[in-house]
């Protein structure tokens, strides 16, 4: 938005800027305008962001600093208040991190985390894409709308509800076991089987969120120009060729973006969901890094060690996001942020 000289002069003058502001979207950044004038001009906007910034400061940035407890021998009972306790706790350097290397449970949690991530990547990730292609193949708008309405629904259920629904279906007293027993077969309990646990939670994830994931892909499909289909049909491409050469390439950027996001979250797999089912199958099969931190820190009061595990998880998570994004850029996709 370019400004006429008149506008600029008006802004340079000391008159209150309210009525002379010309541009709404792009505030003119003029070198001539002193900072205090611009601060004065934009004070309402800054004021508006203030509550959010305070919340972020308190619940995102201060906890970041709170990670210092990983380098301490934090004792919650040393003072009345957590902040005072942090100030008074003795420093121990990297002791907790050294301990982590020799901690069998930590490595087991890491292994479980990665195993669940790989399962998600191979079993969960393709489902929304396939569903979107399937829904998209229906021509009647009514059918598509109803299908979407039903498939979106579970996304809005809480994990407690989803896990409970699964227990009622696949648990020892669940509907399927119940029907099997009535017909003289042996019942079964999927919910307490440690061997199948990782598949169970992936299955739950698909039930809950695959339908929701469809939205993005459907939108990408809707954005494809019909001219392309028409032209290729004229050239004699059958429906499978059209799918291969037009539909799938149209999904490519979205798939790349979501893959990046997924890989970036590789170490954060279904925390709440797993926590709810942890007791049913035992920590051996279900413990992931997040639940390990919760168990060591919150349940058993090992705050310092748990914070150390959390830091390692955070650092590797950040590296994964940056790395995955780099790969996306190399592939010629945009990724999460631009170069």
């Amino acid at each position, binding site marked *: 938005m370019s400004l006429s000289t008149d506008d600029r002069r008006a802004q340079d003058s000391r008159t209150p800027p309210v009525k002379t502001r010309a541009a709404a979207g792009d505030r003119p950044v003029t070198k001539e305008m002193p900072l205090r004038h611009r601060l004065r001009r934009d004070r309402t906007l800054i004021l508006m962001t203030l509550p959010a910034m305070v919340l972020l400061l308190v619940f995102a940035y201060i906890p970041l600093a709170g990670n210092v407890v990983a380098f301490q021998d934090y004792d919650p009972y040393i003072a009345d208040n957590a902040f005072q306790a942090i100030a008074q706790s003795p420093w121990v350097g990297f002791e907790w991190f050294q301990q982590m290397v020799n901690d069998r449970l930590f490595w087991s949690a890491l292994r479980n985390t990665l195993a669940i991530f790989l399962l998600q990547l191979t079993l969960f990730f393709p489902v929304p894409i396939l569903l979107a292609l399937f829904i998209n193949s229906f021509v009647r708008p009514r059918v598509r709308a109803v299908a979407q309405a039903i498939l979106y629904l579970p996304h809005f259920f809480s994990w407690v*509800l989803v896990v409970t629904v699964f227990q*009622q279906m696949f648990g020892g007293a669940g509907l399927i076991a119940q029907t099997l027993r009535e017909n003289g077969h042996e019942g079964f309990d999927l919910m307490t089987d440690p061997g199948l646990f990782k598949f169970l939670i992936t299955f739950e994830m698909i039930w809950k969120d695959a339908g929701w994931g469809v939205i993005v892909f459907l939108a990408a499909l809707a954005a494809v120009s019909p001219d392309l289909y028409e032209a290729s049909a*004229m050239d004699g491409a059958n429906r499978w060729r059209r799918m291969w050469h037009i539909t799938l390439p149209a999904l490519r950027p979205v798939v790349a973006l979501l893959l990046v996001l997924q890989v970036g979250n590789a170490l954060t797999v279904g925390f709440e969901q797993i926590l709810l089912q942890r007791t049913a199958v035992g920590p051996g099969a279900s413990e992931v890094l997040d639940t390990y931190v919760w168990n060591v820190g919150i349940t058993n009061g090992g705050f310092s060690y748990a914070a150390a595990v*959390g830091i390692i998880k955070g650092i590797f998570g950040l590296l994964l996001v940056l790395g995955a994004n780099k790969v996306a850029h190399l592939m010629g996709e945009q990724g999460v942020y631009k170069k």
Partner: protein
Amino acid sequence: MLSGLTGLGGVKPGTRGRLRPVWEEEPSKTGLASKGVVMVLICLAVLFPLWVVIVTSLSSVKTITEAGGLVVIPRGITFVAYQELLGGGQVTRAALISVCVTVVGTLFSMAVSILCAYGLSRTGSVLHRPLLVFMLATMFFGAGLIPTYLVVQGLGLTDSYLALILPSALNVFNILVLRAFFMSTAQELVESARIDGAGDFRILWQIVMPLSRAVIAVITLFYAVGYWSAWFNASIYISDPDMLPLQNVMNQLVLKQERPTGLTQVINTGHLSLLAVQMAVMVLALIPVAFLSPFVQKHFKEGMLTGAVKG
């Protein structure tokens, strides 16, 4: 969606009047039928468990005993379980707490998010970039569970409803969606209002917000569902059982198979099935979400896309 099809340079009515682009081959009958069956099966996979839960919650002790557990075909509908649950006691209290936390939390989150999104939507304002970066950076790091817990504890929020609202009040992604939408609303209107002497608050309230109803509805639903579904914060910050919200009580009643306080006698005397009570709690947790989301549904795509593309 129809409008998308009419631009194809011609559509032809199919066998039963449906609209199909001219270049598409007529599908075979068996192909259509099998596609339909698969679609119905997929939808049933979502709906059937919910159906069973609802039907069981409405069944009498006799029906449940006859079925040997969960009920699939409704017979002898009764509302006893709901009457008992909502007639005072632990579940009623938990449901009220959940409703209050959801309403208050959502209003708070929306107010803060909308203000922040608008404040950051005027590019070129002073401090615009640093504030934006300050916000965006939080998307790349999570402070971690333990330090967050310590901060909430240090602020003295444990065993207070504020612990259920404040730590998770903001979702940066939601703010980005709002901001992207605010930036795309007609700037001419905003400009003319400014010339007429309207301040930023007035512009936001009278011009930008009415124009952004769709996205505001979607984000409100997202926040509301977040508060309604939350159970983890309560599980670590709330130790008083009388302060627990519905999801936590449901967790105790159904997953941990604890008997609801105050209802044990009714269940033991055989007037009420424990299973029906458990299913009724699930239905209570399900109702608001199942009823609200269809109203907002038509705006999902819009909201999601603005976020995905510009965020």
